[in-house]
C-alpha cells in the first residue's frame, strides 16, 4: 500500500516538475508547481509528518503559489520569448547539474540500509505510542519550549518581509518608473 502510494505520488511530483520545465507560459508552470507541492504534502503524510503536510498545503500551495499566480496575472507575463541563450549556461551549467545529480544519487544509492518507512508510524518510538504523543504534540512541545526564540524571530522576519514587499511594490515608488 505504502509502495503504491509512494510510486503514484512520486510520479506526480516528477511529472509536475518536468512539466514546469517544458511549459512556455508561466501560468502553466505555476499550476504544475502546485501539483508538485500537493504531491509532496501526501508524501509527508506517508512519512508521518501530518502537521507539515497541512502546513505545506496551507502555506505553500495555498499562499505562496497563489501569490505567484497573482503576480503572473498582474504583470501580464506572456509566453517566453526566444532570446539569445547563454553559452555559459549550456556549457558549464548542464555538466554541473549532471555532476550534482550523480554525486547525490550515488550517495543515496550506496547509503546502505537506512531504514524503511512504515505506513502509520511517525516520529514516536514504539514504546511510547499513545494519544498524547501525536506528531503535533511533539512538534509543539519542542517548538514552543526550546525553540521559542527562533520562532519569535521568524515572526519578526515575516513582518519585515511584509514591510519590504509593500515598500518595493508600491505604485508610486521612486525608482520604479518604467524605462520608456
Amino acid at each position, binding site marked *: 500500500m505504502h509502495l503504491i502510494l509512494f510510486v503514484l505520488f512520486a510520479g506526480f511530483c516528477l511529472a509536475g516538475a518536468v512539466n514546469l520545465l517544458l511549459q512556455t507560459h508561466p501560468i502553466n*508552470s505555476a499550476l504544475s508547481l502546485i501539483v508538485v507541492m500537493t504531491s509532496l504534502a501526501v508524501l509527508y503524510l506517508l*512519512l508521518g509528518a501530518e502537521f507539515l503536510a497541512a502546513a505545506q498545503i496551507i502555506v505553500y500551495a495555498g499562499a505562496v503559489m497563489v501569490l505567484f499566480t497573482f503576480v503572473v496575472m498582474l504583470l501580464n507575463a506572456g509566453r517566453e520569448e526566444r*532570446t539569445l541563450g547563454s553559452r555559459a549556461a549550456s556549457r558549464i551549467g548542464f555538466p554541473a547539474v549532471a555532476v550534482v545529480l550523480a554525486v547525490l544519487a550515488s550517495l543515496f544509492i550506496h547509503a546502505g540500509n537506512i*531504514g524503511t*518507512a512504515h505506513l502509520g508510524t511517525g516520529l514516536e518510538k514504539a514504546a511510547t505510542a499513545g494519544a498524547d504523543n501525536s506528531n503535533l504534540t511533539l*512538534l509543539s512541545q519542542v517548538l514552543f519550549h526550546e525553540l521559542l526564540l527562533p520562532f519569535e524571530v521568524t515572526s519578526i522576519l515575516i513582518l519585515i518581509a511584509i514591510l519590504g514587499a509593500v515598500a518595493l511594490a508600491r505604485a508610486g*515608488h521612486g525608482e520604479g518608473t518604467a524605462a520608456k
Partner: protein
Amino acid sequence: MDVPLNWYLLLSAALFSLGVIGFLIKRNLITVFMSIELMLNAVNLSFVTFAYQWHAVKGQIFVFFVMMVAAAEAAVGLAIIIAVFRARATLSVDRIDLMKL
C-alpha cells in the same frame, strides 16, 4: 510493502536537479523563481525523510522554519520582480543585465 527511505532521498535529489535545470534554462523571471521554490521543496523532503530515520522532531521543525522563510522570501522576491518590471518593462532574464535600474 515498505518503501526504503533511499527512494525518498533519490526523489529529493531528482527534484533538486530538475529545479537547477529550470533555474538555468528558463527565460522568464517568474519561472526562474518558481524553480527556486522547487529546489526548496526538494530539500524539505529530504529533511522530513531524515527526521523519520532518526526519529528526531527537530528535522520537521527545521522544515517548518524553511517554509516560513521561503514564504517571506517569495513575498519580497515577487515585489522585487514587480519593481524590476516597472523599470525595464520586460521579464526576460537575458534583458535584465544592467545593475543600474
